[in-house]
């Protein structure tokens, strides 16, 4: 690595420094736009007691779901975790903790975390179990709860194209949580389908500027589809 070149040669290098008990923020929505290679590397490393912040926890045998197989996850912070038998078993067995967080609040927690905002007020969840125990404030006659930002020791992100400086473009709805995740890691790793030279991407089209990216790697992706729906 030199200058602004963020490219690393292997997933070992990409995930170096990940330790037991750390917090990892992962981009992705369902199985769309998930950092497949980083997840596989965490599985390989066998790191345990992880707190994973991600909208979902993959499915049995794919995505973040594979980290359940060896009980690597201590706690999930997610908005929806319904796709996964192993998840259910470990949750009911008390081996896994889950902090259910409304989807928009989760996105904003990551955004705030990356933007240096420690907390924010939202009407989402007021008067529901999500608001229990949280500070309530009234603005213009409406009640809001305080939600705290999230940052991670690592953030793992799936992009489409990036230049070697780590300027990233996402493809279609594989964008989802990835741009916020990219801002919220102490160490942010982005894996992409294609790495190009600086200058090849239009600066106007960059979703994640390279300043957020610490390590960049080109991967290959299975891109499994969760609900294949077609019309005739």
């Amino acid at each position, binding site marked *: 690595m030199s200058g602004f070149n963020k490219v690393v040669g292997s997933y070992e290098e990409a995930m170096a420094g990940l330790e037991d008990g750390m917090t990892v923020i992962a981009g992705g929505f369902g199985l769309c736009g998930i950092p497949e290679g980083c997840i596989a590397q965490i599985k390989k490393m066998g790191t345990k007691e992880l707190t994973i912040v991600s909208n979902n926890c993959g499915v049995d045998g794919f995505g973040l779901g594979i980290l359940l197989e060896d009980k690597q996850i201590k706690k999930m912070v997610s908005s929806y975790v319904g796709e996964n038998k192993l998840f259910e078993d470990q949750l009911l067995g008390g081996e896994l903790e889950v902090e259910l967080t*409304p989807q928009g609040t989760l996105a904003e927690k990551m955004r705030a975390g990356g933007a240096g905002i420690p907390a924010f007020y939202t009407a989402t969840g007021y008067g529901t179990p999500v608001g229990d125990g949280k500070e309530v404030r009234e603005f213009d006659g409406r009640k809001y709860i305080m939600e705290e930002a999230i940052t991670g020791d690592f953030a793992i992100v799936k992009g489409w194209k990036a230049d070697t400086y780590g300027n990233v473009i996402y493809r279609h709805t594989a964008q989802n*949580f990835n741009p916020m995740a990219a801002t919220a890691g102490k160490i942010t790793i982005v894996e992409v389908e294609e790495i190009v030279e600086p200058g090849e991407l239009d600066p106007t089209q960059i979703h994640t500027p390279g300043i957020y990216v610490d390590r960049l790697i080109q991967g290959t992706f299975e891109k499994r*589809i969760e609900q294949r729906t*077609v019309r005739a």
Partner: protein
Amino acid sequence: MALSREQLAMRVAQELQDGFYVNLGIGIPTLVANYVPEGMEVMLQSENGLLGMGPFPTEEEVDADMINAGKQTVTTITGASIFSSAESFAMIRGGHVDLTVLGAFEVDVQGNIASWMIPGKLIKGMGGAMDLVAGADNIIVTMTHADKHGNSKLLNECTLPLTGAGCIKKVVTDLAYLEIEDGQFILKERAPGVSVEEIVSKTGGKLVVPDNVPEMNV
């Protein structure tokens, strides 16, 4: 006769207006997209980060990177835009979506809604539902009037944990269209062939019945 799922969707579709940005929940709300009146333009928002959702793709068009909030493969219509989850919920929370349609387990006379959790059963999560009900001014809840045991889902006070407090003003059930105002349900329309008496008997919460309750046009 109680409305079918399709008829429910047809009735909700009557609330659409030309130029509306609309978020449709999973289930019956999704069917509303099939009944957009001829010549009307609406744009469907999907909370994973898509405005201008189109129909399911053909076999050739299937793209793993193009899904909706139900994780189904979809397409985009002309004029669509794609953005991050933070941007998507800025639209939702910020009140920029014109109409939100979603299902529920229970609604009460205070406009409270319960739709995400049944204690004792496995809790899968609220997804974007809490943000949607907190952010939208114009929400329509679609559900059956009573559960399969005949218990009313329109109550004086929700018994299940809430999704949102004081946020629901309109409910379309298989029996009736009701509005919520000043701590009571107001019966606005009844399903074709359904009597006011049946609706009264299946409504648990305080219900105001005007002198004239027209039949729905479905």
